[in-house]
């Protein structure tokens, strides 16, 4: 990469960092313009984490292949009882076992 290309990359990163910061402060700026939170908006806000995080999980389950889907199912089952670190460890064991057995 020559130096002008490299400067361009630095500018891209800075622009992306600024855009990311805007997303992180934007909701706060919008909501503090309102005196009170209407109940339906509060219900909507309460649903945000589950709604967003589901979109990072479901496509991986559908597109990840049999081994990933199996590991996620097992992790889901144990996740109702154990911490997320155990979910990761057990899910990882499942996926590596399947990959080892099916090579």
């Amino acid at each position, binding site marked *: 990469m020559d130096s002008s290309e490299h400067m361009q990359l630095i500018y891209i990163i800075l622009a992306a960092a600024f855009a990311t910061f805007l997303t992180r402060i934007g909701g706060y700026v919008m909501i503090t313009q309102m005196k009170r*939170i209407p109940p339906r908006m509060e219900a909507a806000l309460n*649903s*945000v984490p589950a*709604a967003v995080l*589901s979109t*990072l999980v479901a496509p991986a389950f559908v597109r990840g292949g049999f081994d990933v889907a199996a590991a996620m199912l097992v992790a889901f089952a144990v996740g109702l009882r154990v911490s997320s670190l155990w*979910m*990761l460890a057990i899910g990882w064991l499942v996926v590596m076992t399947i990959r080892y057995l099916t090579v």
Partner: protein
Amino acid sequence: MTQDDFWQGIRGGFPVMVSASPFGALFGALAIDNGFSVFDAVFMSATLYAGASQMVGIELFGHKVQPWLIVLSIFAVNFRHILYSASIARHIRHFSGVQKFFTFFLLVDPQYAETEKRAERGEPVTFAWYLGFAMIIYVPWQIMTLLGAIFGQMIGEPRAIGLDVLLPIYFMGLVLGFRKRDNWLPVVAVSSLASIAAMHFVGSPWHVSIGAIAGILLAACLPLPKRHEEPVTLEHEV
């Protein structure tokens, strides 16, 4: 008291750091693969501090995609943070302006999730706690990016050592952590299906925003639970 909160934050963030570290290293290694220097990789981790969008960014850069499209894609992946910052406004209104600046800069998914959980348990959301929780994730994220970039070739194929399965399982654990909330199951079901459909028909990364908005709209339209009769009041502030 403040110091206690800080250490409590560090302890709380420790498991997140452990699960995020492989991704920091993976990002560093993949960044080198896509034409970044070691400095560029750490610079991106330090200024964006948003793992999934960093992965998207280096992937697009590696494919020589137009700069404006790279920035727009990163913005789209991170768009969910708008909802996070709106949602935690209720819990951080006692922070000073400078504290809020750092609060929002450091607002990553697990940070948001833990802040909400802490407020739900009735424990005080102090800046000391928030900063402790953030630092035990932010600082190692930079170190792991650096190590991953330096030793990029040693990580090899991420799939071969099972790294690819960790991120979705981690996010799934977070989803399960919210299962006591109103309308959790319908929201998760609708967001999941909408994101799968959007990934198929529109493509990544828009499936994140589209799937999330579907679930949130559903939550706003479903019948309200009784206890929401009294709306939460927010004092007006800049």
